[in-house]
């Protein structure tokens, strides 16, 4: 393999762009796993669900996938709140979240995947939008719009979430519920309601991330599994629930994956995230920007 500077620069830039997309995929988990301590391993399944909704609407009505997913966010929010309610009553209240709660989410992941396979088969689905085809050229740089647009919208989403968490009352309550549930109750705030809202928001981001996913690559039901390793690697590396940390970690992983794919072949890329995860867990479990 000849090592060329052009290739390297292009790999780094596309890694940063892909990293922006990874940030959107992970921000939901940073909220649920990082802040609320709910190990929602079914998150990728909701992302794939978002992809398929964007696909159905796009194929039938021709509406832009990102617009569709923004319109669908309230529905995902309600879905998330409902799931949290079930999770709370069945597991968290009984103190069984570590074993049965995990199995519950695993079951959800599995049911979603198999249902999608039964309805749509294992064919790859894709969407059509004006920005999917063209790409920009700056000298040696080559930036495909289909990755740039999700990256920019994703950064907006992450920034919005950060503002929500630090500036609004509910957002601050979410941060507080992670620290001390009892203290929150003493402030006359219902911690379960706050957690329900936060989990709803976390699932709502999956709708948008799903649209990004199907813009960037064709989707079939089991694609989500590749993202489990990535999502949790980024979440842990970013420092569990720190959104700026999530963005930095996502871009770091994006760059390393992109360089691996460019110089060693794309079939090795999935192994990178696992190496990342294990290395982080072994060396610095608190993550980059850990509290």
């Amino acid at each position, binding site marked *: 393999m000849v090592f060329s500077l052009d290739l390297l620069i292009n790999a780094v830039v596309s890694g940063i762009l892909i990293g922006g997309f990874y940030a959107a995929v992970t921000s939901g988990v940073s909220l649920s*796993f990082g802040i609320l301590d709910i*190990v929602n*391993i079914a998150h990728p399944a909701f992302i794939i669900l978002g992809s398929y909704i964007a696909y159905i609407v796009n194929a039938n009505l021709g509406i832009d996938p990102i617009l569709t997913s923004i319109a669908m966010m309230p529905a995902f929010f309600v879905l998330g709140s409902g799931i949290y309610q*079930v999770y709370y009553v*069945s*597991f968290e209240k*009984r103190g*069984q979240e*570590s*074993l*049965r709660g*995990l*199995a*519950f989410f*695993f*079951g*959800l992941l*599995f*049911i979603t*995947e*198999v*249902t999608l*396979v*039964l309805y749509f088969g294992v064919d790859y689905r894709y969407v059509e939008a004006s920005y999917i085809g063209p790409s920009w050229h700056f000298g040696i740089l080559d930036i495909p719009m289909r990755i740039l647009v999700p990256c920019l919208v994703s950064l907006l989403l992450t920034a919005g979430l950060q503002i929500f968490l630090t500036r609004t009352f509910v957002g601050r309550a979410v941060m507080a519920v992670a620290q001390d549930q009892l203290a929150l109750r003493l402030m006359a705030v219902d911690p379960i309601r706050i957690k329900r809202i936060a989990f709803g928001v976390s699932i709502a981001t999956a709708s948008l991330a799903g649209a990004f996913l199907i813009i960037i690559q064709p989707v079939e039901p*089991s694609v989500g*599994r*590749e993202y*489990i*390793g990535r999502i*949790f*690697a980024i979440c*842990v590396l970013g420092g569990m629930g720190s959104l700026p940390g999530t963005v930095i970690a996502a871009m770091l992983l994006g760059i390393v994956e992109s360089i691996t794919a460019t110089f060693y*072949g794309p*079939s*090795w890329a*999935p*192994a990178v*995230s*696992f*190496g990342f*995860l*294990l290395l982080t*867990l*072994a060396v610095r*479990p608190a993550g980059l920007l850990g509290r």
Partner: protein
Amino acid sequence: MRTPVFLLVWVAISAVVFAGSVWLGNDYIFFAGYVVLQYVVLGTAWNILGGYCGYVNFGSAAFFALGAYSSVAIYRLVTENDLYGLPLPLLMLIGGLVSGVVGFGMGYLTLRLRGAFFAIATLALAVVLQTLVVNWDYVGGSRGAYIIRPERIEPIGNYIQYLFLLMMALAVGALTIARLIEHSRLGYGFASIRDDELAAEASGVPTLRLKLIATTISGALMGMAGAPFPYYIGYLQPSSTFGLDYAVNSIAMPLIGGTTSWVGPLIGALLLGSLQQIATVTISSAVNLLIVGCLLVIFVVIAPNGIVGLVHTYLQRKPEDFVGRRRVEAEMPGKVP
């Protein structure tokens, strides 16, 4: 019941089952039975870590596939160099060794942290091992690998009957190990970790060492279950060997049967395994996986202690309770305590 007696009883039951299947004279029973027995081993192995220690392993498929692919690698090595083939029981030991070592290594890296990290790492392990196998041409890469199964083996005769017997022996072994652990210091240590790890640590239980033992035993058993699989299936392909169905089945079976004793995974595996065999033949294989997923969610929400727990609470209700309650109800209508 003492362990030798327990073992003898199971050997006798196995002998009866095997003789009965031979008497029925249909090879399909052995093919279907092999899969069910394989799930008994996987479920029991999962339960040693999941049920006894409370640590969730989502990577059963990875450990299973490690065993299967170590067999394939050895098969390739032997056929290419014209060596004399290794007997299957030895392959199973090697598969178990490989999976056990990987389980130990991963446990060492992640078990010092909170339980969720271990679960996530096992989930990612399956993806990574699949990546490695897909890129490893020696064992077939993404195209898959063929293994030529001998027609007959002496002195048993039919090869599928030999595979069935091996898996039955492994299942009996796994059940015996699980039961032995349950009633030993090790088992009590595991239970203390499951109930309150911090308190266990504070009372001087060597939690990390115990967890590593559990991960290694569990992983090794899964690898042993996987080692004869290439000989059973004939054509091994990464996407099906690493499939999510092994992971979901080996979790669903103990959780549906009941996680606190060796009986639970056995009941769960026999029940779900047979159900799936029937559903695969009569409906379709995708639908039967959907059934397993739904059953898993329903059971963890509604019956946290599985079938064993349901039976247990049913048996503990005394008849007098009902009589007493009815009397109270008759005296004070609408005021049942």
